[in-house]
Protein backbone atom coordinates (compact mmCIF):
# COMPACT_ATOMS: atom_id res chain seq x y z
CA UNK A 1 0.00 0.00 0.00
CA UNK A 2 1.60 3.21 -1.03
CA UNK A 3 2.01 6.39 0.93
CA UNK A 4 -0.87 8.16 -0.75
CA UNK A 5 -3.38 5.50 0.06
CA UNK A 6 -2.11 5.51 3.58
CA UNK A 7 -2.53 9.25 3.77
CA UNK A 8 -5.99 8.96 2.33
CA UNK A 9 -6.95 6.59 5.13
CA UNK A 10 -5.45 9.04 7.56
CA UNK A 11 -7.56 11.69 5.97
CA UNK A 12 -10.71 9.74 6.60
CA UNK A 13 -9.98 9.99 10.30
CA UNK A 14 -9.38 13.73 10.06
CA UNK A 15 -12.46 14.01 7.93
CA UNK A 16 -14.59 12.34 10.54
CA UNK A 17 -13.51 14.92 13.09
CA UNK A 18 -14.39 17.64 10.59
CA UNK A 19 -17.76 15.98 10.18
CA UNK A 20 -18.41 16.09 13.91
CA UNK A 21 -17.32 19.69 14.00
CA UNK A 22 -19.48 20.78 11.11
CA UNK A 23 -22.66 18.78 11.43
CA UNK A 24 -23.74 20.90 14.38
CA UNK A 25 -23.24 24.09 12.42
CA UNK A 26 -25.26 22.69 9.55
CA UNK A 27 -28.11 21.50 11.74
CA UNK A 28 -28.28 24.72 13.71
CA UNK A 29 -28.38 26.77 10.60
CA UNK A 30 -30.82 24.46 8.90
CA UNK A 31 -33.25 24.56 11.80
CA UNK A 32 -32.85 28.02 13.21
CA UNK A 33 -31.47 29.93 10.28
CA UNK A 34 -28.86 31.04 12.76
CA UNK A 35 -25.27 31.66 11.78
CA UNK A 36 -23.15 30.47 14.66
CA UNK A 37 -19.79 32.07 14.22
CA UNK A 38 -18.84 30.92 17.70
CA UNK A 39 -18.76 27.34 16.56
CA UNK A 40 -14.99 27.36 16.30
CA UNK A 41 -14.62 28.65 19.84
CA UNK A 42 -16.79 25.77 21.03
CA UNK A 43 -14.40 23.34 19.38
CA UNK A 44 -11.63 25.12 21.26
CA UNK A 45 -13.42 24.80 24.58
CA UNK A 46 -14.05 21.13 23.93
CA UNK A 47 -10.34 20.56 23.45
CA UNK A 48 -9.36 22.40 26.63
CA UNK A 49 -12.11 20.74 28.64
CA UNK A 50 -10.96 17.31 27.54
CA UNK A 51 -7.40 18.21 28.42
CA UNK A 52 -8.35 19.55 31.85
CA UNK A 53 -10.71 16.77 32.86
CA UNK A 54 -8.36 14.08 31.65
CA UNK A 55 -5.54 15.62 33.65
CA UNK A 56 -7.73 15.85 36.74
CA UNK A 57 -9.35 12.45 36.58
CA UNK A 58 -6.87 10.36 34.62
CA UNK A 59 -9.63 9.13 32.34
CA UNK A 60 -9.65 10.20 28.74
CA UNK A 61 -13.13 8.87 28.20
CA UNK A 62 -14.34 11.05 31.01
CA UNK A 63 -12.54 13.93 29.37
CA UNK A 64 -14.34 13.28 26.12
CA UNK A 65 -17.67 13.04 27.81
CA UNK A 66 -16.94 16.29 29.59
CA UNK A 67 -15.97 17.99 26.35
CA UNK A 68 -19.36 17.15 24.94
CA UNK A 69 -21.30 18.00 28.06
CA UNK A 70 -19.55 21.23 28.97
CA UNK A 71 -19.89 22.69 25.52
CA UNK A 72 -23.49 21.54 25.25
CA UNK A 73 -24.26 23.37 28.46
CA UNK A 74 -22.54 26.51 27.22
CA UNK A 75 -24.47 26.18 24.01
CA UNK A 76 -27.83 25.87 25.69
CA UNK A 77 -27.18 28.71 28.09
CA UNK A 78 -25.94 31.00 25.34
CA UNK A 79 -28.93 30.13 23.18
CA UNK A 80 -31.44 30.69 25.91
CA UNK A 81 -30.09 33.93 27.31
CA UNK A 82 -28.32 35.57 24.44
CA UNK A 83 -28.70 34.20 20.97
CA UNK A 84 -32.43 33.64 21.00
CA UNK A 85 -32.94 37.39 20.87
CA UNK A 86 -31.24 37.63 17.54
CA UNK A 87 -33.29 35.11 15.59
CA UNK A 88 -35.31 37.82 13.94
CA UNK A 89 -32.33 40.01 13.27
CA UNK A 90 -30.44 40.05 10.01
CA UNK A 91 -27.54 37.68 9.64
CA UNK A 92 -24.92 40.31 10.22
CA UNK A 93 -26.24 40.90 13.72
CA UNK A 94 -26.03 37.21 14.45
CA UNK A 95 -22.50 37.15 13.16
CA UNK A 96 -21.57 40.18 15.20
CA UNK A 97 -22.97 38.74 18.40
CA UNK A 98 -21.34 35.36 17.90
CA UNK A 99 -18.04 37.03 17.03
CA UNK A 100 -18.36 38.85 20.32
CA UNK A 101 -19.09 35.58 22.03
CA UNK A 102 -16.05 34.06 20.33
CA UNK A 103 -13.81 36.78 21.72
CA UNK A 104 -15.18 36.27 25.21
CA UNK A 105 -14.88 32.49 25.11
CA UNK A 106 -11.42 32.48 23.58
CA UNK A 107 -10.01 35.10 25.92
CA UNK A 108 -11.64 33.28 28.80
CA UNK A 109 -9.81 30.11 27.87
CA UNK A 110 -6.52 32.00 27.65
CA UNK A 111 -7.17 33.61 31.00
CA UNK A 112 -7.57 30.21 32.62
CA UNK A 113 -5.00 28.16 30.74
CA UNK A 114 -2.54 30.70 29.38
CA UNK A 115 -1.73 31.63 25.79
CA UNK A 116 0.76 28.87 25.10
CA UNK A 117 -0.20 25.79 23.20
CA UNK A 118 -0.41 22.73 25.36
CA UNK A 119 0.29 19.11 24.72
CA UNK A 120 -2.54 16.78 25.44
CA UNK A 121 -1.25 13.36 26.22
CA UNK A 122 -2.67 10.48 24.29
CA UNK A 123 -4.26 7.90 26.57
CA UNK A 124 -1.98 4.86 26.81
CA UNK A 125 -4.59 2.43 25.67
CA UNK A 126 -5.00 4.27 22.42
CA UNK A 127 -1.43 5.29 21.83
CA UNK A 128 -0.12 2.32 19.97
CA UNK A 129 -0.09 1.32 16.36
CA UNK A 130 -1.90 -1.38 14.57
CA UNK A 131 -0.06 -2.99 11.70
CA UNK A 132 -1.94 -2.99 8.44
CA UNK A 133 0.41 -4.89 6.19
CA UNK A 134 3.65 -2.95 6.21
CA UNK A 135 2.07 0.25 7.47
CA UNK A 136 1.57 1.25 11.06
CA UNK A 137 -1.91 2.66 11.58
CA UNK A 138 -2.19 4.63 14.79
CA UNK A 139 -4.77 3.08 17.04
CA UNK A 140 -6.04 6.51 17.90
CA UNK A 141 -7.14 7.13 14.37
CA UNK A 142 -9.17 3.97 14.47
CA UNK A 143 -10.65 5.12 17.74
CA UNK A 144 -11.66 8.45 16.24
CA UNK A 145 -13.18 6.72 13.27
CA UNK A 146 -15.13 4.42 15.54
CA UNK A 147 -16.41 7.20 17.77
CA UNK A 148 -17.47 9.32 14.81
CA UNK A 149 -19.10 6.39 13.10
CA UNK A 150 -21.12 5.63 16.22
CA UNK A 151 -22.09 9.26 16.63
CA UNK A 152 -22.93 9.49 12.94
CA UNK A 153 -25.17 6.46 13.12
CA UNK A 154 -26.76 7.82 16.25
CA UNK A 155 -27.47 11.11 14.55
CA UNK A 156 -28.88 9.42 11.51
CA UNK A 157 -31.13 7.35 13.72
CA UNK A 158 -32.13 10.40 15.71
CA UNK A 159 -33.07 12.49 12.71
CA UNK A 160 -34.59 9.85 10.51
CA UNK A 161 -36.25 7.51 12.95
CA UNK A 162 -37.35 9.40 16.01
CA UNK A 163 -40.16 11.81 16.71
CA UNK A 164 -37.69 14.43 17.81
CA UNK A 165 -35.85 14.10 14.55
CA UNK A 166 -39.05 14.44 12.62
CA UNK A 167 -39.78 17.62 14.50
CA UNK A 168 -36.35 19.02 13.71
CA UNK A 169 -36.76 18.21 10.05
CA UNK A 170 -40.19 19.73 10.05
CA UNK A 171 -38.87 22.78 11.82
CA UNK A 172 -36.27 23.02 9.06
CA UNK A 173 -39.11 23.64 6.67
CA UNK A 174 -41.20 25.88 8.85
CA UNK A 175 -40.78 26.65 12.51
CA UNK A 176 -44.06 28.49 12.39
CA UNK A 177 -45.77 25.25 11.59
CA UNK A 178 -44.21 23.56 14.56
CA UNK A 179 -45.53 26.29 16.77
CA UNK A 180 -49.00 25.96 15.35
CA UNK A 181 -48.92 22.26 15.92
CA UNK A 182 -48.41 22.92 19.59
CA UNK A 183 -44.89 21.65 19.74
CA UNK A 184 -42.68 23.56 22.13
CA UNK A 185 -40.36 25.08 19.59
CA UNK A 186 -38.10 26.48 22.26
CA UNK A 187 -37.47 22.99 23.55
CA UNK A 188 -36.63 21.70 20.08
CA UNK A 189 -34.26 24.61 19.58
CA UNK A 190 -32.58 24.11 22.93
CA UNK A 191 -31.99 20.41 22.39
CA UNK A 192 -30.79 20.96 18.85
CA UNK A 193 -28.43 23.68 20.01
CA UNK A 194 -27.12 21.47 22.79
CA UNK A 195 -26.55 18.65 20.37
CA UNK A 196 -24.97 20.77 17.67
CA UNK A 197 -22.62 22.59 20.01
CA UNK A 198 -21.87 19.50 22.07
CA UNK A 199 -20.71 17.71 18.94
CA UNK A 200 -18.32 20.54 18.19
CA UNK A 201 -16.97 20.20 21.70
CA UNK A 202 -16.58 16.45 21.29
CA UNK A 203 -14.73 17.05 18.04
CA UNK A 204 -12.39 19.33 19.93
CA UNK A 205 -11.86 16.71 22.60
CA UNK A 206 -11.05 14.09 20.00
CA UNK A 207 -8.69 16.39 18.16
CA UNK A 208 -6.84 17.48 21.29
CA UNK A 209 -4.40 14.56 21.59
CA UNK A 210 -3.55 14.94 17.92
CA UNK A 211 -2.71 18.59 17.69
CA UNK A 212 -2.59 19.79 21.27
CA UNK A 213 -4.69 22.59 22.61
CA UNK A 214 -3.96 26.16 21.66
CA UNK A 215 -5.97 29.37 21.41
CA UNK A 216 -5.80 29.58 17.63
CA UNK A 217 -7.72 26.33 17.23
CA UNK A 218 -11.00 28.17 17.23
CA UNK A 219 -10.20 30.40 14.29
CA UNK A 220 -8.96 27.48 12.23
CA UNK A 221 -11.96 25.38 13.15
CA UNK A 222 -14.61 27.91 12.17
CA UNK A 223 -13.15 28.19 8.72
CA UNK A 224 -13.01 24.44 8.23
CA UNK A 225 -16.56 24.15 9.50
CA UNK A 226 -17.79 26.78 7.08
CA UNK A 227 -15.99 25.15 4.17
CA UNK A 228 -17.36 21.72 5.00
CA UNK A 229 -20.90 23.02 5.42
CA UNK A 230 -20.83 24.98 2.18
CA UNK A 231 -19.28 22.07 0.35
CA UNK A 232 -21.71 19.55 1.74
CA UNK A 233 -24.78 21.69 1.60
CA UNK A 234 -26.57 23.45 4.41
CA UNK A 235 -29.19 21.78 6.53
CA UNK A 236 -28.29 18.31 5.43
CA UNK A 237 -26.74 15.59 7.48
CA UNK A 238 -24.94 13.66 4.78
CA UNK A 239 -23.51 16.89 3.49
CA UNK A 240 -21.14 17.54 6.39
CA UNK A 241 -20.21 13.86 6.38
CA UNK A 242 -19.19 13.68 2.77
CA UNK A 243 -17.86 17.21 2.82
CA UNK A 244 -15.81 16.54 5.91
CA UNK A 245 -14.34 13.38 4.44
CA UNK A 246 -13.45 15.09 1.19
CA UNK A 247 -11.72 17.93 2.99
CA UNK A 248 -9.97 15.58 5.40
CA UNK A 249 -8.69 13.32 2.65
CA UNK A 250 -7.62 16.28 0.51
CA UNK A 251 -5.71 17.80 3.36
CA UNK A 252 -3.97 14.57 4.30
CA UNK A 253 -3.02 13.64 0.80
CA UNK A 254 -1.77 17.09 -0.05
CA UNK A 255 0.42 17.12 3.04
CA UNK A 256 2.28 14.21 1.46
CA UNK A 257 2.50 15.77 -1.97
CA UNK A 258 2.84 19.50 -1.35
CA UNK A 259 2.89 20.25 2.36
CA UNK A 260 2.91 24.03 2.06
CA UNK A 261 -0.04 23.90 -0.23
CA UNK A 262 -2.08 21.44 1.80
CA UNK A 263 -4.23 24.14 3.32
CA UNK A 264 -4.54 25.93 0.03
CA UNK A 265 -5.65 22.74 -1.68
CA UNK A 266 -8.70 22.49 0.54
CA UNK A 267 -10.02 25.78 -0.71
CA UNK A 268 -9.21 25.06 -4.30
CA UNK A 269 -11.14 21.82 -4.08
CA UNK A 270 -14.04 23.63 -2.49
CA UNK A 271 -14.04 26.31 -5.15
CA UNK A 272 -13.89 23.68 -7.84
CA UNK A 273 -16.83 21.71 -6.53
CA UNK A 274 -18.91 24.81 -6.05
CA UNK A 275 -18.31 25.88 -9.62
CA UNK A 276 -20.06 22.76 -10.74
CA UNK A 277 -22.56 22.35 -7.93
CA UNK A 278 -23.43 25.79 -6.56
CA UNK A 279 -25.58 24.50 -3.72
CA UNK A 280 -22.99 22.08 -2.48
CA UNK A 281 -23.12 18.33 -2.77
CA UNK A 282 -26.36 17.75 -0.91
CA UNK A 283 -27.70 21.22 -0.47
CA UNK A 284 -31.36 22.07 -0.60
CA UNK A 285 -32.47 25.17 -2.44
Amino acid at each position, binding site marked *: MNIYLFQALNGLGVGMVYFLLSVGLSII*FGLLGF*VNFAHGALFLIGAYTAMFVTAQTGSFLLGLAASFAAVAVIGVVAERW*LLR*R*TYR*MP*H*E*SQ*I*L*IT*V*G*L*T*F*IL*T*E*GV*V*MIFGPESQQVPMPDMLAGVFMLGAYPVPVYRIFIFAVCAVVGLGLWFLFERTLFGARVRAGNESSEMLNLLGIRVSRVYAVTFALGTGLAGLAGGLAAPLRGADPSMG*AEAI*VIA*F*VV*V*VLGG*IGSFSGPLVGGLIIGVTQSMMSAIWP*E*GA*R*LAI*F*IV*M*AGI*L*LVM*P*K*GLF*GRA
Partner: protein
Amino acid sequence: MLEKIKHSSGLFCLALAGFALAMPLVMGSTATAGVVLVFAIAAAACNLLLGYAGLLSFAQGSFFGVGSYAVGMVLKAAPGAGMAALLVCIVAGMIVALAIGMLSIRQRGIYFVMITLAMAQLAYFAALSFPQLTGGENGLLDIPRPATGLEGIVGEGAGQYALIAVVFVLAIAFLRLVVRSPFGRALDAVRENEVRAQTAGYDVQKLKLLAFCLSGGITALAGALYALQLRSAPLSNIDLMTSETILIMAILGGRRSLLGAAFGALAMTLMAEQLSQLWPRWQMIVGLVLIAVVLFAPRGLGSAWAHWRDRRSAPAGDRA
Protein backbone atom coordinates in the same frame (compact mmCIF):
# COMPACT_ATOMS: atom_id res chain seq x y z
CA MET B 1 -27.67 68.87 11.83
CA LEU B 2 -27.00 65.32 10.72
CA GLU B 3 -29.93 65.58 8.36
CA LYS B 4 -28.37 68.59 6.68
CA ILE B 5 -25.11 66.72 6.26
CA LYS B 6 -26.93 63.80 4.72
CA HIS B 7 -28.59 65.94 2.13
CA SER B 8 -25.78 68.24 1.15
CA SER B 9 -22.71 66.99 -0.64
CA GLY B 10 -20.77 70.04 0.41
CA LEU B 11 -21.48 69.60 4.08
CA PHE B 12 -20.78 65.89 3.82
CA CYS B 13 -17.33 66.51 2.41
CA LEU B 14 -16.79 69.13 5.05
CA ALA B 15 -17.68 66.62 7.73
CA LEU B 16 -15.22 64.15 6.24
CA ALA B 17 -12.50 66.78 6.14
CA GLY B 18 -13.28 67.73 9.71
CA PHE B 19 -13.00 64.13 10.78
CA ALA B 20 -9.65 63.81 9.03
CA LEU B 21 -8.33 66.98 10.63
CA ALA B 22 -9.51 65.94 14.07
CA MET B 23 -8.06 62.46 14.00
CA PRO B 24 -4.43 63.26 14.79
CA LEU B 25 -5.64 65.20 17.82
CA VAL B 26 -7.96 62.44 18.95
CA MET B 27 -5.48 59.63 18.41
CA GLY B 28 -2.38 61.51 19.46
CA SER B 29 -0.29 60.91 16.36
CA THR B 30 -0.59 61.06 12.61
CA ALA B 31 0.44 57.42 12.39
CA THR B 32 -2.50 56.05 14.36
CA ALA B 33 -4.81 58.66 12.84
CA GLY B 34 -3.74 57.29 9.47
CA VAL B 35 -4.74 53.80 10.58
CA VAL B 36 -8.21 55.05 11.48
CA LEU B 37 -8.69 56.71 8.11
CA VAL B 38 -7.38 53.71 6.19
CA PHE B 39 -9.80 51.37 7.91
CA ALA B 40 -12.58 53.89 7.58
CA ILE B 41 -12.17 53.70 3.82
CA ALA B 42 -12.23 49.91 3.93
CA ALA B 43 -15.25 49.89 6.23
CA ALA B 44 -17.15 52.31 4.02
CA ALA B 45 -16.45 50.13 0.99
CA CYS B 46 -17.81 47.25 3.04
CA ASN B 47 -20.92 49.31 3.79
CA LEU B 48 -21.58 49.60 0.07
CA LEU B 49 -21.87 45.85 -0.05
CA LEU B 50 -23.55 45.28 3.29
CA GLY B 51 -26.04 48.09 3.53
CA TYR B 52 -26.81 48.71 -0.12
CA ALA B 53 -26.17 45.54 -2.09
CA GLY B 54 -27.17 43.38 0.83
CA LEU B 55 -23.98 41.34 0.59
CA LEU B 56 -22.21 40.30 3.77
CA SER B 57 -18.67 39.70 2.58
CA PHE B 58 -15.83 38.14 4.55
CA ALA B 59 -13.52 38.66 1.61
CA GLN B 60 -12.76 42.32 2.30
CA GLY B 61 -9.43 41.37 3.85
CA SER B 62 -8.43 39.73 0.60
CA PHE B 63 -8.85 42.99 -1.27
CA PHE B 64 -7.12 44.90 1.49
CA GLY B 65 -4.18 42.49 1.36
CA VAL B 66 -4.03 42.47 -2.42
CA GLY B 67 -3.80 46.25 -2.38
CA SER B 68 -0.97 46.07 0.15
CA TYR B 69 0.98 43.55 -1.85
CA ALA B 70 0.35 45.34 -5.11
CA VAL B 71 1.67 48.67 -3.89
CA GLY B 72 4.65 46.90 -2.37
CA MET B 73 5.48 45.02 -5.53
CA VAL B 74 5.10 48.06 -7.77
CA LEU B 75 7.06 50.49 -5.62
CA LYS B 76 9.86 48.08 -4.87
CA ALA B 77 10.27 47.39 -8.56
CA ALA B 78 9.73 50.97 -9.68
CA PRO B 79 10.07 53.47 -6.83
CA GLY B 80 9.52 56.32 -9.21
CA ALA B 81 5.99 55.20 -9.94
CA GLY B 82 4.66 57.32 -7.13
CA MET B 83 0.89 57.80 -7.06
CA ALA B 84 0.41 55.69 -10.14
CA ALA B 85 1.11 52.71 -7.92
CA LEU B 86 -2.14 53.44 -6.12
CA LEU B 87 -4.04 53.18 -9.38
CA VAL B 88 -2.49 49.80 -10.02
CA CYS B 89 -3.73 48.68 -6.62
CA ILE B 90 -7.27 49.74 -7.35
CA VAL B 91 -7.24 47.76 -10.56
CA ALA B 92 -5.70 44.76 -8.82
CA GLY B 93 -8.43 44.89 -6.21
CA MET B 94 -11.13 45.04 -8.84
CA ILE B 95 -9.70 42.07 -10.69
CA VAL B 96 -9.51 39.94 -7.57
CA ALA B 97 -13.03 41.07 -6.67
CA LEU B 98 -14.23 40.02 -10.09
CA ALA B 99 -12.67 36.58 -9.66
CA ILE B 100 -13.99 36.03 -6.15
CA GLY B 101 -17.31 37.60 -7.09
CA MET B 102 -17.92 35.37 -10.05
CA LEU B 103 -17.64 32.34 -7.83
CA SER B 104 -19.47 33.75 -4.84
CA ILE B 105 -22.27 35.87 -6.20
CA ARG B 106 -24.21 33.06 -7.79
CA GLN B 107 -24.89 32.08 -4.19
CA ARG B 108 -27.46 33.76 -2.03
CA GLY B 109 -27.84 34.43 1.64
CA ILE B 110 -25.69 32.49 4.05
CA TYR B 111 -24.00 30.49 1.29
CA PHE B 112 -22.58 33.71 -0.05
CA VAL B 113 -21.24 34.64 3.37
CA MET B 114 -19.57 31.31 3.86
CA ILE B 115 -18.05 31.25 0.43
CA THR B 116 -16.50 34.67 0.81
CA LEU B 117 -14.97 33.42 4.02
CA ALA B 118 -13.52 30.43 2.25
CA MET B 119 -12.30 32.63 -0.58
CA ALA B 120 -10.59 34.85 1.96
CA GLN B 121 -8.79 31.85 3.35
CA LEU B 122 -7.84 30.79 -0.13
CA ALA B 123 -6.27 34.17 -0.70
CA TYR B 124 -4.45 33.96 2.62
CA PHE B 125 -2.96 30.55 1.93
CA ALA B 126 -2.15 31.55 -1.61
CA ALA B 127 -0.19 34.49 -0.22
CA LEU B 128 1.57 32.13 2.16
CA SER B 129 2.33 29.62 -0.54
CA PHE B 130 4.07 32.01 -2.87
CA PRO B 131 6.70 33.75 -0.77
CA GLN B 132 8.61 34.75 -3.89
CA LEU B 133 5.84 37.22 -4.60
CA THR B 134 4.50 38.09 -1.22
CA GLY B 135 7.36 37.57 1.16
CA GLY B 136 5.42 34.77 2.82
CA GLU B 137 5.30 34.99 6.61
CA ASN B 138 7.34 38.17 6.68
CA GLY B 139 5.48 40.03 4.02
CA LEU B 140 7.04 42.65 1.80
CA LEU B 141 9.44 44.92 3.65
CA ASP B 142 11.01 48.31 3.02
CA ILE B 143 8.37 49.70 0.74
CA PRO B 144 9.46 53.17 -0.35
CA ARG B 145 6.92 55.90 0.23
CA PRO B 146 6.10 58.04 -2.75
CA ALA B 147 6.91 61.70 -2.32
CA THR B 148 3.88 63.85 -1.67
CA GLY B 149 5.65 67.12 -2.03
CA LEU B 150 4.68 68.18 1.46
CA GLU B 151 7.55 66.61 3.28
CA GLY B 152 9.63 69.74 3.19
CA ILE B 153 6.82 71.81 4.68
CA VAL B 154 5.26 69.65 7.36
CA GLY B 155 7.57 66.69 7.70
CA GLU B 156 7.33 63.15 6.46
CA GLY B 157 4.71 61.86 8.88
CA ALA B 158 2.31 64.71 8.31
CA GLY B 159 2.96 64.58 4.58
CA GLN B 160 2.01 60.94 4.53
CA TYR B 161 -1.05 61.68 6.61
CA ALA B 162 -2.09 64.41 4.22
CA LEU B 163 -2.04 61.88 1.40
CA ILE B 164 -4.18 59.47 3.37
CA ALA B 165 -6.58 62.23 4.39
CA VAL B 166 -7.10 63.38 0.83
CA VAL B 167 -7.74 59.85 -0.40
CA PHE B 168 -10.08 59.33 2.57
CA VAL B 169 -12.24 62.30 1.63
CA LEU B 170 -12.22 61.44 -2.08
CA ALA B 171 -12.95 57.73 -1.58
CA ILE B 172 -15.85 58.18 0.79
CA ALA B 173 -17.28 61.05 -1.23
CA PHE B 174 -17.09 58.76 -4.24
CA LEU B 175 -18.94 56.04 -2.37
CA ARG B 176 -21.59 58.55 -1.47
CA LEU B 177 -21.92 59.44 -5.13
CA VAL B 178 -22.33 55.78 -5.95
CA VAL B 179 -25.05 55.11 -3.40
CA ARG B 180 -27.06 58.08 -4.63
CA SER B 181 -26.75 57.10 -8.26
CA PRO B 182 -29.19 55.05 -10.35
CA PHE B 183 -26.84 52.14 -9.68
CA GLY B 184 -27.18 52.71 -5.96
CA ARG B 185 -30.97 52.66 -6.26
CA ALA B 186 -30.79 49.49 -8.31
CA LEU B 187 -28.71 47.89 -5.55
CA ASP B 188 -31.27 48.96 -2.99
CA ALA B 189 -34.01 47.41 -5.06
CA VAL B 190 -32.11 44.16 -5.34
CA ARG B 191 -31.51 44.14 -1.62
CA GLU B 192 -35.08 44.95 -0.70
CA ASN B 193 -36.84 42.54 -3.00
CA GLU B 194 -34.65 40.53 -5.30
CA VAL B 195 -37.51 38.69 -6.97
CA ARG B 196 -39.32 41.89 -7.80
CA ALA B 197 -36.11 43.49 -9.05
CA GLN B 198 -35.40 40.59 -11.33
CA THR B 199 -38.95 40.51 -12.62
CA ALA B 200 -38.69 44.21 -13.35
CA GLY B 201 -35.72 43.59 -15.60
CA TYR B 202 -32.68 44.06 -13.36
CA ASP B 203 -29.76 41.74 -13.98
CA VAL B 204 -29.19 40.96 -10.34
CA GLN B 205 -25.95 39.03 -10.78
CA LYS B 206 -24.28 41.76 -12.80
CA LEU B 207 -25.35 44.48 -10.42
CA LYS B 208 -23.99 42.63 -7.41
CA LEU B 209 -20.79 41.89 -9.28
CA LEU B 210 -20.27 45.54 -10.13
CA ALA B 211 -20.81 46.51 -6.50
CA PHE B 212 -18.33 43.84 -5.47
CA CYS B 213 -15.73 45.18 -7.91
CA LEU B 214 -16.15 48.77 -6.80
CA SER B 215 -15.86 47.72 -3.19
CA GLY B 216 -12.84 45.55 -3.95
CA GLY B 217 -11.03 48.36 -5.73
CA ILE B 218 -11.56 50.86 -2.94
CA THR B 219 -10.67 48.34 -0.24
CA ALA B 220 -7.46 47.55 -2.13
CA LEU B 221 -6.71 51.26 -2.20
CA ALA B 222 -7.08 51.33 1.57
CA GLY B 223 -4.74 48.37 1.87
CA ALA B 224 -2.21 50.14 -0.30
CA LEU B 225 -2.29 53.24 1.88
CA TYR B 226 -1.87 51.10 4.96
CA ALA B 227 1.18 49.42 3.42
CA LEU B 228 2.64 52.84 2.70
CA GLN B 229 1.95 53.86 6.27
CA LEU B 230 3.70 50.79 7.65
CA ARG B 231 6.29 50.77 4.88
CA SER B 232 5.55 47.09 4.64
CA ALA B 233 2.88 44.67 3.48
CA PRO B 234 2.55 42.09 6.25
CA LEU B 235 0.77 38.80 5.84
CA SER B 236 -1.77 39.87 8.42
CA ASN B 237 -3.26 42.35 5.97
CA ILE B 238 -4.78 39.49 4.04
CA ASP B 239 -5.83 37.29 6.90
CA LEU B 240 -9.29 36.53 8.16
CA MET B 241 -8.94 38.77 11.19
CA THR B 242 -8.61 41.77 8.87
CA SER B 243 -11.80 40.79 7.09
CA GLU B 244 -13.55 40.38 10.42
CA THR B 245 -12.29 43.72 11.68
CA ILE B 246 -13.43 45.60 8.59
CA LEU B 247 -16.82 43.94 8.76
CA ILE B 248 -17.20 44.72 12.45
CA MET B 249 -16.34 48.38 11.85
CA ALA B 250 -18.88 48.55 9.05
CA ILE B 251 -21.61 47.00 11.17
CA LEU B 252 -20.77 49.05 14.27
CA GLY B 253 -21.13 52.29 12.38
CA GLY B 254 -24.42 51.24 10.86
CA ARG B 255 -24.74 49.14 7.76
CA ARG B 256 -25.81 51.97 5.49
CA SER B 257 -23.89 54.79 7.03
CA LEU B 258 -20.72 55.90 5.26
CA LEU B 259 -19.90 58.46 7.93
CA GLY B 260 -20.72 55.77 10.45
CA ALA B 261 -17.98 53.61 8.94
CA ALA B 262 -15.47 56.27 9.96
CA PHE B 263 -16.78 56.20 13.51
CA GLY B 264 -16.81 52.43 13.54
CA ALA B 265 -13.17 52.48 12.48
CA LEU B 266 -12.42 55.01 15.17
CA ALA B 267 -14.16 52.99 17.86
CA MET B 268 -12.40 49.74 17.03
CA THR B 269 -8.99 51.39 16.63
CA LEU B 270 -9.38 53.24 19.91
CA MET B 271 -10.35 50.07 21.69
CA ALA B 272 -7.40 48.21 20.20
CA GLU B 273 -4.96 51.00 21.04
CA GLN B 274 -6.13 51.91 24.50
CA LEU B 275 -7.45 48.67 25.88
CA SER B 276 -4.54 46.56 24.71
CA GLN B 277 -2.24 48.61 26.89
CA LEU B 278 -4.42 48.09 29.93
CA TRP B 279 -5.16 44.40 29.79
CA PRO B 280 -3.78 41.59 27.64
CA ARG B 281 -7.22 40.09 27.48
CA TRP B 282 -8.69 43.31 26.11
CA GLN B 283 -10.47 41.51 23.31
CA MET B 284 -12.88 40.19 25.86
CA ILE B 285 -14.09 43.75 26.37
CA VAL B 286 -14.45 44.16 22.62
CA GLY B 287 -16.58 41.02 22.65
CA LEU B 288 -18.80 42.48 25.34
CA VAL B 289 -19.10 45.74 23.43
CA LEU B 290 -20.13 43.91 20.28
CA ILE B 291 -22.77 41.93 22.12
CA ALA B 292 -24.04 45.08 23.76
CA VAL B 293 -24.27 46.86 20.42
CA VAL B 294 -26.25 44.04 18.88
CA LEU B 295 -28.67 43.86 21.78
CA PHE B 296 -29.11 47.56 22.46
CA ALA B 297 -28.16 49.40 19.29
CA PRO B 298 -28.87 46.80 16.64
CA ARG B 299 -28.70 49.18 13.77
CA GLY B 300 -25.26 50.32 14.72
CA LEU B 301 -23.96 53.38 16.47
CA GLY B 302 -24.43 55.63 13.47
CA SER B 303 -27.97 54.48 12.98
CA ALA B 304 -29.07 55.50 16.41
CA TRP B 305 -28.92 58.94 14.82
CA ALA B 306 -30.51 57.74 11.61
CA HIS B 307 -33.38 56.24 13.57
CA TRP B 308 -34.13 59.58 15.15
CA ARG B 309 -33.77 61.33 11.87
CA ASP B 310 -35.94 58.84 9.95
CA ARG B 311 -38.97 59.62 12.03
CA ARG B 312 -38.97 63.16 10.79
CA SER B 313 -37.92 62.91 7.17
CA ALA B 314 -39.38 61.94 3.80
CA PRO B 315 -40.18 58.35 2.79
CA ALA B 316 -37.35 55.97 2.00
CA GLY B 317 -37.42 56.31 -1.73
CA ASP B 318 -36.46 59.95 -1.68
CA ARG B 319 -33.80 59.62 0.98
CA ALA B 320 -30.07 59.67 0.38
